[in-house]
């Protein structure tokens, strides 16, 4: 028989926490070795118990879940931590992932899904509640688009928008109040930065990268 997974539950909601612990203790191969009502308390229990896996709420008094996760990561970079929260707030979600959470589960998870998630997390997989997956993907896309946008200057983006409207060099120069030579210089830089060969390709690539 496998050694049971040693769990710690951190949640300030006493009714939820006690119920959850009672539920976890009924699940096979799990053992709850510690509980805490806020992050500060959790750090003390963590040092003493060194659990295999921590279930961590986010919105808690004294020290919230993300601060706690950051502190735990400093004590043990390999510690497995799953956030278990009602928050679908982007700031909490992305904050937890950036702080190094191994997963983000909502409290509306079914008990059998929670169990399989714990097993997956112990196997080294990252897990997300289906409700938050699309938010993570959106955030990644947004951040990629922001990075792409920073490749080009604001003026180059303006020139690209003109190219996308099918404007010629002289028309662009007129619209942006710059010389045709300056327009050509901007276009040459755009082609280099986007690694394309002509204006049409530049517009297609810019559209693909959500620059325009």
């Amino acid at each position, binding site marked *: 028989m496998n050694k049971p997974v040693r769990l710690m539950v951190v*949640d*300030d*909601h*006493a*009714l*939820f926490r*006690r*119920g*959850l*612990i*009672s*539920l976890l203790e*009924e699940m096979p191969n799990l053992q709850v070795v510690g509980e805490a009502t806020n992050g500060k308390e959790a750090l003390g229990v963590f040092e003493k118990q060194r659990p295999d896996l921590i279930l961590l709420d986010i*919105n*808690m*008094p004294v020290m919230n879940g993300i601060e706690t996760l950051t502190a735990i990561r400093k004590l043990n970079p390999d510690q497995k931590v799953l956030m278990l929260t*009602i928050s679908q707030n982007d700031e909490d979600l992305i904050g937890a992932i950036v702080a190094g959470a191994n997963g983000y589960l909502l*409290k*509306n*998870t*079914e*008990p059998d899904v*929670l169990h399989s998630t714990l097993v997956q997390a112990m196997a080294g997989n990252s897990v997300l509640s289906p409700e938050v997956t699309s938010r993570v993907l959106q955030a990644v896309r947004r951040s990629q688009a922001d990075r792409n946008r920073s490749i080009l200057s604001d003026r180059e983006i303006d020139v690209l928008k003109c190219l996308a409207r099918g404007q010629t060099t002289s028309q662009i120069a007129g619209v942006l109040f710059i010389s045709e030579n300056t327009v050509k210089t901007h276009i040459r830089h755009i082609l280099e930065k986007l690694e394309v060969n002509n204006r049409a390709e530049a517009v297609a690539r810019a559209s693909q990268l959500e620059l325009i």
Partner: protein
Amino acid sequence: MTHHKIPVRRVVIISANPLFREGLRTLYADRWKGKALIVATPTNMAEADAALEKHQPNLVIVDYDDKTINRAEFLEHFFDGKSTMQMMLVSLGDAGEVVIYDRRKLTPADAQNWLNDPWQEE
């Protein structure tokens, strides 16, 4: 010596959150053995209405965080009803406060007795 048979109380736990619902069930089912029975665990208003009508519970625990469960509607139920019932309102989003309502129906004589010591332990 006469033994009074204490009736088994009926408990309904209303929550859209399975971990909360099943957690409470696991925690209290054994602890309440012989004293109370969790008779229903509805997950939305329609199921809750049906369970309240069918079981006439002594205790209702309501987690009103989910949009499918309406706190105001529950309070209306509570104030409209006549039978003895306790109701606990819980929000998973607010760990600071749980509200318990205690509804009793008494005869005027019982009410007078009750007023002699309204704060006695049950």
